[in-house]
């Protein structure tokens, strides 16, 4: 159903389709989008207020990895640190950020400030303080299940501050949450099984390089749709090769669009 709708919209506005692709191109870090429209979209992921949610149970780590990766985008040229603020109740609930794992994900530990706040109110306060400091490259908030006060007012406040400061702000929410929000985009991230891999004699297929689906649930610039992506060794994400899942035709059929 969703796929059909996507197809229809894509047909209606081919320009949007191109823009969305350019956003991803930009995220790859390979090319600076050209043209007025491209520049507009190119700025999309590197500024403003974005919400990142898992698609289901167990996708929290994927959402966090995506947010950290996006936060690292704007960091590439400057020496500015990323501010990561987590609710201290999250530590045992969803796990605490593990330095070796974060490094493997491409996070520069020298340029990561970790803040622990014991109250939800303090997490928003930290975000506002960070947004008022020009020495910060990006901010990642992780509230998880401790989100009680968050509403449209708070989201609008954060959005306005983030836009005024020109610092991207990513908020990781619990996957069951949703509702009204002023965020520039709400991304849903889900972990997908990696490309098949095994070796002779192994009882079970091996865990291969992970793959994710990124779904734009709502956005200011973009129409809702989804991509599949994976990370490279440096933690940048790029579109996954459709061939990995079989013949291009099948994949395109499944995802309701022609393989780009």
């Amino acid at each position, binding site marked *: 159903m969703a796929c059909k709708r996507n197809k229809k919209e894509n047909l209606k506005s081919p320009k949007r389709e191109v823009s969305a692709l350019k956003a991803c191109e930009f995220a790859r870090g390979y090319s600076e989008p050209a043209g007025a429209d491209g520049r507009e979209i190119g700025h999309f992921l590197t500024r403003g207020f974005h919400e990142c949610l898992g698609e289901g149970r167990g996708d929290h780590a994927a959402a966090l990895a995506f947010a950290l990766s996006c936060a690292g985008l704007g960091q590439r040229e400057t020496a500015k640190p990323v501010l990561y603020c987590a609710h201290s109740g999250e530590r*045992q609930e969803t796990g605490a950020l*593990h330095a*070796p794992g974060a490094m493997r994900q491409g996070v520069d530990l020298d340029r990561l400030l970790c803040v622990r*706040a014991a109250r939800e109110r303090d997490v928003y306060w930290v975000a506002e303080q960070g947004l008022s*400091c020009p020495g910060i490259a990006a901010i990642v908030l992780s509230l998880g299940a401790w989100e009680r006060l968050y509403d449209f007012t708070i989201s609008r406040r954060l959005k306005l501050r983030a836009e005024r400061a020109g610092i991207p702000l990513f908020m990781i929410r619990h996957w069951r949450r949703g509702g009204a929000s002023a965020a520039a985009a709400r991304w849903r991230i889900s*972990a997908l099984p990696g490309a098949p891999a095994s070796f002779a004699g192994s009882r079970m297929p091996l*865990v291969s390089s992970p793959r994710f689906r990124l779904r734009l649930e709502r956005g200011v610039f973009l129409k809702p749709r989804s991509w599949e992506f994976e990370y490279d060794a440096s933690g940048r994400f790029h579109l996954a090769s459709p061939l990995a899942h079989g013949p291009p035709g099948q994949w395109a059929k499944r995802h309701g669009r022609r393989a780009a």
Partner: protein
Amino acid sequence: MAAEPHEGPLALTHSGQGGDRLIAVNEAAGAQGLAPGLLLADARAMAPELKSLAHDADAEARGLERLARWCGRFSPWVSPDPPDGLWLDVTGTTHLFGGEAAFLETLDAALGRLRLCARLAMADTPGAAWALARFGREAMSCIPAGAQKTSLEGLPVAALRLGEAVARQLERLGLKRIGQLYDIAPLSFRSRFGREVTRRLNQALGREKEPISPMTPEPDYQASLRFPEPIGLLSDVNAVADILITRVMACLAAHGKGARGFLLTLYGATGGVFTVEVKTAALGTDGEHVKRLFQERLRVLENRFDVNFGADAFSLQVSAVERLEHRQGDIADDSSGQENIDPLIDRLRARLGRNAVARLNLRESHIPERAAYASRAEAGVKPEGRAPALAPRPLLLLPRPEAIRAIAEVPDYPPHRFEWRKVTYEVARAEGPERVSAEWWRENADGDFRTRDYFRVEAPQGARFWIFRLGLNERREAPCQWFMHGLFP
């Protein structure tokens, strides 16, 4: 300090020779002829309604120290003199209270408000003041400069802070008054009593110097404010802090110095002292920044002031003072982004606590709990150590591994399915085992760390977990237990 006084006769007792003996009595008990040193049994015979309490020396010492801190409003140089005295070096401070006699009046009134009756004496030397406070005729005496000799003349020799045995021996020799010692050659004391008597006498008369060691070293820079009426409102306290910070900062700037530590002390009107400390990451030269830090800190601590009914004296002391290095900025250097996060770190710390802001660092260890640690977040602090490469590590690690129920083949295969937090996960793909053993080369460092076999497993939908098995089947370490320890993206 604020306890209600007891109405009837009251005595503090301490077990001594022949049973409990009184060591302190109140006024009502004193009126009935009770005195320290009396046996409790005898005292009860004399005053049947006597109430007695065991003497708690530790509590008394603590109380004395609290009182000494509270007296910091009168002089920065206060030292407790156990068991029952306080030294105040008031050199150069009495004029703030309108002279020496007025100072003693103020001190007496302030102590009276705490329901303490004290004997006060002021003299040129600590020894003379000590003698007059304890053996003087009046409860409050202030002797003029250089008059120690005549004032002490009539006091008993015990007033010289001599040991009990020495004082008794002097009395046995007929030397009962201090005045009698003046004309005796010091050498003749020395052969009988060592240097003690001469030293104490010289100290009391000012012939020998005697320093008072204050409780805290006096800071180089400080400012204080006193008010006739106590202040209790947070906004007023903030305003006072602002004034003090402005003053101290101006003083520091005039000397080309900066500081990292600021300690604001609130002296409660009814006793009680409350301190608020703020530390800055960079050498604090920006008064506005320090003011903001204090505002944050005071807001957090608002409900914890233990100064009832407000504070009427404030002081701000500065520590970690350093000379300011004037640096010329590099015209091509764009490192300002790194530098100006220090104020942000200070603000976050002031509100969330000192350990709330950290940088993550790696340690060369395969044990996940040891492989990372948090360190100070200031700019310029470079973390050291690198993680062991190769092995996969999760993005999120549970601080405490959680027990899961898993079904796996023996001896060392990954589980087929497991149950974590009441949800059952099938395992579609798995990688492992990665064996992590105790680091035997570190002595007793890991306690009872048992060897773990880690697996990276993937559910059919794609969620990836890091689980481990405790207990080795091949060594017949039964029963095996499975734990969830981390989450991969």
